């Protein structure tokens, strides 16, 4: 019988190894799987490559992994924010490598990773610093860059509700990077507020189908994300 539920976040991340590539969902605090991130800071895997849109928006996001010296390489679109000091320090000392990708290119590269497309062309970032060194090609009279897929060994995602099979639905803009990251990792771990019986989620409203979710961990429902106005 399918049962993807783990009893603790520690168990859910126990097998993560040094050097792994990790995709982390969320956009700022909303949709951030912060309990899984916290468990990983305890677990201690090092030399991680982390793919996440925001890096310093909240202290309990990827910033916590950076401060804990677990990250070797970062791919993101927005590496600034109130908790980015430790990142800046490590970039200057050369202990972390940073790749900035336009947000849409980042999302599309992850989508390509989940969809079996090794590479695609996009006009985004042509003639910019972020397009430097990339292969260029003209289609329909317009210049495009070749961009490569991103996949992860693990994805940490957050959703609102799951069933035993691993079907997921999200709350409002909590959705953000979570559904696409769920498709692109070998092992996708979803932190959810509620796990319901199979059949309780309408088949037409499921956003992430069960096939993309490997592990489920339930956390307290009150913690749905944070309003960032005061940070």
């Amino acid at each position: 019988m399918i049962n993807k539920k783990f009893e603790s976040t520690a168990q859910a991340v126990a097998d993560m190894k040094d050097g792994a590539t990790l995709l982390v969902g969320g956009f700022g605090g909303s949709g951030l799987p912060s309990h899984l991130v916290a468990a990983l800071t305890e677990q201690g895997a090092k030399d991680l490559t982390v793919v996440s849109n925001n890096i310093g928006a909240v202290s309990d996001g990827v910033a916590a992994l950076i401060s804990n010296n677990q990250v070797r390489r970062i791919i993101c679109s927005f590496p600034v924010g109130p908790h980015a000091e430790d990142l800046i320090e490590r970039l200057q000392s050369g202990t972390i490598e940073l790749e900035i990708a336009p947000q849409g290119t980042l999302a599309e590269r992850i989508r390509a990773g989940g969809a079996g497309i090794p590479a695609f062309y996009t006009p985004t970032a042509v003639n910019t610093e972020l397009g430097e060194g990339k292969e260029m090609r003209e289609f329909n009279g317009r210049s495009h860059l070749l961009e490569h897929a991103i996949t992860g060994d693990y994805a940490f995602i957050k959703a609102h509700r799951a069933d035993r099979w691993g079907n997921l639905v999200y709350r409002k803009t909590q959705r953000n990077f979570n559904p696409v990251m769920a498709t692109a990792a070998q092992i996708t771990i979803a932190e959810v507020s509620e796990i319901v019986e199979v059949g309780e989620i309408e088949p037409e409203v499921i956003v992430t189908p069960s096939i993309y979710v490997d592990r489920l961990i339930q956390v307290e429902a009150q913690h749905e994300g944070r309003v960032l106005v005061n940070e």
Partner: protein
Amino acid sequence: MSKDQKEVMGWKMPELASRLALDLEDGWFVNLGIGLPTLVADYIPEGREIILHSENGLLGLGPKPEAGEEDPDLVNAGKEPITLKPGGSYFSQSESFALIRGGHLDAAVLGAFQVSMHGDLASWKLPNATLGRVGGAMDLTVGSKRVFLFMQHCTNKGEAKIVEECSFPLTATRCVDRIYTNLAVIDVTEGGLVVKELAPGVKFEEVQERTAAPLQRSEALLVK
């Protein structure tokens, strides 16, 4: 362009937002960039339905929530609490950027550090910054049917932001269609920058003095 030029007021930012909003047509889907451009949301003319997009995954952005009504799972691209209008929808970031990059937005209203007379835009990184913050800026400029800039005409130090060639890192080339500043509304055309409208009390020459690229008068302005 120098610091000792006398100050020219022109539009205040809310007035400029109101002016820009007049050019958004009924039924348009529009993205308002982080920061200043979000002001435009408050000035959509009555009777027009403009559907606002936020790149973190929604269409139908509504007004700011009342104090105490904020929902941490309902935020805009600036991570500020917002509301959703009836008819609004949620989707993932990959769907949101497929929408942007697929050319479906009628307009994007963005801020700028610099814009060139050819419509090149620099908006994501200051020349000496350790880190840029590109977010969705490159996707929005490349993908939107129209790119409108919403900005102060000069920097706080009085330096021109409208230039012949951008010296700051570029967001995209040949992408800006129109520039709304506190002093004027300026079209970027094949033939160069054309001042379409002047803020009340502002003279063409005053705008030209504060612009590091040649400006032309639009026909409407010549008639005046």
